[in-house]
């Protein structure tokens, strides 16, 4: 009996903690799965945009995210199409765009709202054989001193939002039309230090649509 008692108590001693810890592991695991889900959930694009012009292609399309207390920050990723025109090939472009909207969704009637100002900074890259990020090694160091592939752009604009009534929502809760006036780094460099180029020569218009999924 003594021996048996010993066996049972040892077994209990051995199994109980492991049982407890197993249970703890399980809940931690569940917790981790929840965290994992919520992390990737945050990365689910909240909206999609289609933009015409804007020094990032003829037409660009891509997902985006908004964040901040009043959703005043936005990050967009675009893939754009640039027709060849006089050059030798059609090109794709990639764009990473950061937007700041100081006043969001100012009401304009029952179903409409306006973002009176948007400010955007975006970096664009042209994918093509004739474009380089770093000067090819055939050139003496700092020969041209700039990258033909990477462009920095700045723009300002406004947005008009239409909130789709609850009963009519299918895939999105609102649609936004926006326009922007912007310029690109090489245009600024061109206009710098001369009178010939005016602001109107380097500022360009672009138009876009935003579909807010949730």
């Amino acid at each position, binding site marked *: 009996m003594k021996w048996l008692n010993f066996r049972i108590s040892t077994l209990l001693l051995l199994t109980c903690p492991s049982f407890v810890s197993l249970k703890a592991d399980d809940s931690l695991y569940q917790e981790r799965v929840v965290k994992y889900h919520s992390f990737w959930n945050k990365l689910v694009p909240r909206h999609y945009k289609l933009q015409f*012009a804007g020094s990032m292609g003829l037409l660009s399309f891509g997902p985006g995210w908004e964040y901040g207390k009043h959703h005043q920050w936005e990050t967009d990723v675009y893939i754009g199409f640039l027709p060849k025109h006089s050059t*030798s090939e059609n090109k794709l472009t990639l764009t990473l765009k950061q937007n700041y909207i100081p006043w969001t969704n100012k009401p*304009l009637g029952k179903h409409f709202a306006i973002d009176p100002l948007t400010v955007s900074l975006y970096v664009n890259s*042209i994918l093509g054989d004739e474009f380089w990020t770093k000067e090819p090694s055939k050139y003496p160091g700092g020969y041209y001193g*700039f990258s*033909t592939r990477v462009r920095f752009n700045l723009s300002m604009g*406004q947005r008009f939002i239409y909130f789709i009534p609850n009963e009519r929502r299918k895939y999105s809760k609102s649609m936004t039309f926006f326009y922007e006036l912007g310029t690109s780094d090489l245009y600024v460099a061109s206009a710098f230090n001369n009178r010939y180029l005016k602001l109107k*020569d380097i500022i360009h218009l672009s138009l876009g649509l935003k579909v807010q999924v949730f």
Partner: protein
Amino acid sequence: MIGTRKLLPFLLLFFTSCSAFDYSPYDGLVKGEVGVNNKNSALIERNCSKRDTIRFAVISDTQRWYDDTQDFVRILNKRNDIDFVLHGGDISDFGVTKEFLWQRDILNELKVPYVVLLGNHDCLGGGKEVFTKVFGNPNFSFKAGHTKFICLNTNALEYDYSNPIPDFNFIDNQLDSLASPDDKTIFAMHARPYSDQFNNNVAKIFQKDICRFPNLQFCLSAHDHQIEADDLFGDGVMYYASANIAKRSYLVFTLYKKGYKYEVVEF
């Protein structure tokens, strides 16, 4: 709705204040005149035909110096003794499409015809195709009076071996089409032999090749952003280079029946 009405004038002002849409600085979207060199070469040939004395101005490297280029145009337009203007290349700095158009529009104000050579900066980011569209083939020639101007693309560093730079076949064909042994020849290029752009492996062969041409007067180049006058190969063939336009000077050459005169004009 009052809000919308108030916004409308601002919107209209915004939309009209910019030159519409831009797809990319490198969109290759050419608006306005194209084939400038072809048209102007024909004008030069017509204006100078059968004349013994020809006077032409040379500028180059006007990239991003819009005001200086415009000043040059104004000053040259006051003269009545120039037959044409030769631009030695680097009309753009970044190879950006609009650079070619802005400079073309400035040079189009010239009262006399002009031609533009391809510079190394013009080759960047698909610029060589835009150049070809706006101005024409980077290798071209025209005749002013009795003198044949052979304009060459010598920016070898911007190409690989699939494109012969300088193109000896093109040069050869120019020799074949020469009509009379009395004719004279001038070669023009952006980068001269032994510069960082030239295919220096063939520098001597190039020189030997162009020396075959009847009455080779001299060669013109640009690229170095300074005025130069050198007998590069010690064979008596002079290479004259114009400075960048920001240095505010241009060259004037007067070709006589025999010999020529060369001067630097500052403005």
